[in-house]
């Protein structure tokens, strides 16, 4: 019996290790990055989050900025139940970095059909880069419940 028990354990462990190797491969070979620490919104004692966001660059001027050859930054402010700006235009093939934050509750930020998918948490800056190779209209959707009109929270990204 002892032998059977060991076989059990070894077999289970082997399956697991196989999965881990696959994951490591995906990370290294496919260069997939998770959103991480992209900064916080400095909030003074007693200050309201919305006021602090609007006083912090780049959220004081939300929109598209060219930050290098072929590189764009898109600053977006999320507020129940819209994004500022609501319509965004970027060139196809360029590296687009989304820098987003929320002024009130937790919101979501996803673009169906892409890897662009992150949570927006009050006080924190969420950041993610992506290259849109195919021109067309992409939809930005809030996919975290954020109050009674959550299902109307959307924006459009035009890739030209």
């Amino acid at each position: 019996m002892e032998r059977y028990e060991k076989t059990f354990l070894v077999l289970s462990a082997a399956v697991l290790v196989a999965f881990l190797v696959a994951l490591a491969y995906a990370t290294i070979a496919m260069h997939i990055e998770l959103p991480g620490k992209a900064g916080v919104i400095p909030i003074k004692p007693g200050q309201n989050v919305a006021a602090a966001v609007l006083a912090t660059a780049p959220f004081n001027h939300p929109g598209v900025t060219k930050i290098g050859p072929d590189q764009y930054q898109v600053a977006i402010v999320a507020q129940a139940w819209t994004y500022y700006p609501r319509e965004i235009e970027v060139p196809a093939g360029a590296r687009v970095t989304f820098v987003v934050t929320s002024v009130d509750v937790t919101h979501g930020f996803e673009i169906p059909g892409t890897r662009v998918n992150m949570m927006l948490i009050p006080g924190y800056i969420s950041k993610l880069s992506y290259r849109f190779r195919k021109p067309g209209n992409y939809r930005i959707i809030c996919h975290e419940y954020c109050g009674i009109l959550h299902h109307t929270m959307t924006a459009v990204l035009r890739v030209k």
Partner: protein
Amino acid sequence: MSAPIVYRSEGFELPGVQRNLIRWTIYLGFAALAVGVVNGLDQALSYAGINIFRFYPEMRTYYQGLTVHGVFNAIVLTFAFGNGFISLTTARALGRALSTPIQVAAFAAIAVGTVLAAFAMFTGEATVLYTFYPPLEASWTFYLGLALIVISTWLVSADLFLSLARWRREHPGERIPLLAYMSVVTYLMWDLASLGIAAEVVLLLLPWSLGLLPGSDPMLSRTLFWLTGHPIVYFWLLPVYVSWYGMIPRQVGGKLFSDSVTRIAFLAFLLLIPVGFHHQFLDPGISPTLKYFIAVLTFAIFFPSLMTAFAVMYALEIGGRSHGGKGLIGWFFRIPWRDPSVSAQVLAMLAFMLGGISGLMNASYSMNMMIHNTTFVSGHFHLTVATAVTLSYMGIAYWLVPYLEQKELWGRTLARWQSWIYFVGVLIFSTGLTIGGFAGMPRRTPIALISYPKLPEWQLAGLLAAVGGSLMFIGAVLFFVILAVTILAGQHEAVADIPLSETVERPTLAGWAVRLDRLGLWLGVSLVLVLIVYGSFIAHHLPPHLISQPFKAF
């Protein structure tokens, strides 16, 4: 040769009061499920663009119903079932009664807690979903209700630990009976895991909702929530594993393969509590290094479930062969499918295998970026908690309710159909949600009301969700009919005992395996792991950033 998994094989009877308390606790859970699935139906139809929830009298919005669905199904049903069922298995395993006062207190806590939370939800004061992320702010009755529900599980734990401690004092040098071991480790795991949510609710949200704090800390709350929110799934699952290891082998005519492997599987869950960060892969403010590290741990939790799959398959195979099953898979068709308790639970196992695959995809962060917060996630957890767990609860109820009522199960054939209908339903439902998820269909969203156009792929996805969800709903209704008729009009029948597996060999009294029973030690190890993973994050974060003002637009 074989060995029992309980202390006394025969001649144990639970005092009548305790039997009734367990009965009422379990019925409270099923009553919550009955309300929960009604809301499930409207959610499923909404994904096909059909809006029926405006006809629901108690709900002003989709989200109000979704909050009820999440809280009643994922919290009240599961906690009540665990409290009742695990109290029973522990008492039976140790061959001794529990403490009546503690059982009364536990029942009172979960009943009052449920009523308070229900009051808040039905009056529209708590439309915050079952994750209640601040600064969405519910009324204090909601948080107090949740706190009481958690306290009921702690009371049950206290009862289990006291019973076990007394038993060990009376039986020095003996191994803990296997059934008691599985039961107690389930609650030990949960006690440690629940500290996150308890701290969140009691230290942050409850005082905030009473106006005692200047604001809420969305990030800290979320992290504390997920500290509990991942291991909570083991708390849903482990009572079902108790049945799959402790009862199913007997019910199918097989045997439990190994005493030690079973203990190791349960211990693994205790040690792997701190993996909840994978729910926050896409959150800002948490370092990617920590996230990668957690991804590794997350994979480790498949280990005890793989062990379970092997062990259960072994038992089913012996059972199937003893009923004349032959060949490589022939035995599978010969297990007693006619027993509704068996068919429900074996179908639940099949759903769990599929759920396990989608879980692996979820845990791989590369994949997670595609499907996070899409309906892929709901597709995953309806295979797991809503089927592997809930359909197993139903299967267990098919022997448990007759045992508690001393009545014969009514409608055995219908019960068998019930499990198949629910199972086929969830397969269709989850297929739809999975397809939708890959096409970015958001979860927690009434697609019937969205202000933007549907993507083309969402059409088929929503249709499948609606058809499958309706079948699940029918399956659930049949379950309640069977239960109600059995309770109200069932024929009296003396049911002497619960089904109990046997292991192939007695547990050893010497060697490494004895150390598995040193539960205090293992609890300590687990605590250290939790501190390592969460300690640095929380220490860096404290004191709480109470930045967010209440948001109540729901």
